């Protein structure tokens, strides 16, 4: 138990000290948020609603980035550098190591949510009810788990360069096509259909629903859980194959 606590502490430290993390998952979304709610004239009818809506988009964008990029690339680094092998020699079990990493990530996600929410409040004075803040935050935290599964799938790649290239592309594609940058109703009909099958759309959509006073659509639960299973199964399969 003591070992797991220590491990969690160091995992957190490592994430915090990573400059890419700070840049991609905090700085970028907040800058985007500022630009699209203050500088670019989006011509939306209800500016207040847009500011809250776009805050949810950028928070999910931030958390998704950390889950896909940080988690997966770190795993590849530890694998290729021989560190994972080295750890196998210690009495610290692999599951405990993985759990600590998950814990570190989820704590990071929680912090990212708080920081980006706070930025929305400070930049635009976004005001939501306490339960809207709470439940949208909780939704984003929980619904980030399928993206950690995607991260662990990227973590099975053999080279750091491939992993970082692929995860960048997936991350940006998911963000744009899922309507995190621009609402999907501005998309052509064909792309709207695509979006409805993407985990990123449902990730953000759940949060959008919560701040509009609804609860997330059952379809969002279904799609996200479905993707999580698929990612986990493939990642486990690939890992099993690599080890044999």
């Amino acid at each position, binding site marked *: 138990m*003591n*070992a797991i606590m*220590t*491990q969690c502490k*160091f995992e957190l*430290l*490592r*994430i915090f*000290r*990573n400059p890419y993390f700070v840049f991609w998952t905090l700085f970028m979304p907040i800058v985007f948020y500022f630009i699209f709610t203050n500088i670019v004239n989006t011509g939306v009818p209800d500016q207040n609603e847009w500011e809250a809506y776009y805050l949810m988009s950028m928070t999910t964008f931030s958390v998704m980035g950390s889950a896909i990029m940080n988690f997966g690339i770190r795993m590849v*680094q*530890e694998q290729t*550098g*021989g*560190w994972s*092998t*080295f750890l*196998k*020699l*210690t*009495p*610290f*079990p692999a599951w405990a190591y993985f759990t600590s990493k998950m814990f570190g990530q989820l704590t990071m996600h929680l912090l990212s949510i708080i920081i980006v929410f706070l930025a929305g409040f400070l930049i635009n004075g976004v005001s939501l009810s306490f339960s809207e803040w709470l439940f949208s935050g909780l939704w984003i935290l929980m619904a980030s788990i399928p993206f950690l599964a995607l991260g662990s799938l990227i973590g099975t790649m053999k080279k750091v360069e491939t992993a970082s290239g692929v995860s960048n592309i997936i991350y940006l594609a998911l963000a744009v096509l899922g309507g995190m940058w621009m609402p999907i109703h501005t998309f052509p009909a064909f792309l709207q259909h695509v979006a409805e099958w993407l985990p990123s759309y449902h990730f953000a959509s759940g949060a959008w629903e919560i701040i509009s006073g609804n609860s997330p659509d059952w379809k969002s639960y279904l799609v996200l859980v479905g993707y999580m299973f698929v990612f986990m199964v493939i990642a486990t399969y690939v890992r099993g194959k690599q080890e044999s």
Partner: protein
Amino acid sequence: MGNVVQLEHVTKKFGKQLAVKDVSLTIEKGSTVAILGPNGAGKTTTISMMLGLLEPTEGVVKVFDKSPKETIVRDRIGAMLQEVSIIDMLKVREVIEMFRSYYTSPLQVEELISITGLKEDVLGKWANKLSGGQKRRVGFALALTGNPDLVFFDEPTAGLDITARRNFWEKVETLKSQGKTIIFTTHYLQEADDFSERIILFNNGEVIADGKTEEIKRNLATRSVSFLTDDKEVMALVQTFHTVIRCFEKDGRFYIVTSDTDAVLAQIFQQGIHAKDVAIEQGRLEEVFEHLTSNDQEVM
């Protein structure tokens, strides 16, 4: 039982490639064993199986009478592997602290510093940004963090200069005096000779010699009889002689390595071999080692 490591008919295949062939051996508590052999001889594969990192294709590997994968076993072993890059974003001190949390009775940081000769200022450095020598020291410290009874060093001194090598072995002497079992692989025959009580010589995945360092030296560094001859059939004939360990041809000279030069000479004359310029040489261990493990035109 006194056996710390036990291998029974262990074979390891990678696809069709045979990396280790039917190896059986036991290593006793408190001994220092050198695993010697050229690249690709199966040293690292064998060590990896002892460490539970690789599963043998056939046979059984036991460490402390259990599977090396068991947590209780892991708690009692430490290892320095080749080419491990320590994770980023942590200081050396933090990595050591992290490792200490893994074991039931770890050594204190001060103890680790005194055993490994790790410098205080290195503790404050980023663990993934160390010089080669510092990295090796940190690896040494991590191997000993759990105060292990059994320590593995895989090519611990490769790429180190002479002073650093001597330093390292001095530290290992201390471990030996504490009664720890030490298994190391090396390219340097001299190191095996100086620091081990037992040598296990690997070639092409097989153990080709195993015994006390002194014995190996006596047996391997045996004398050889050499001569010049025009007779092409000699090789096959000489193979059948008593006391012949092996024969090879080098620079036109024909060499017979034997434990008894007198017996070989007697047989040469008995068989009426046309041998000219006969000489008896005292084989050096280095030379024997080279021949045993190289793939030149040697006939065995």
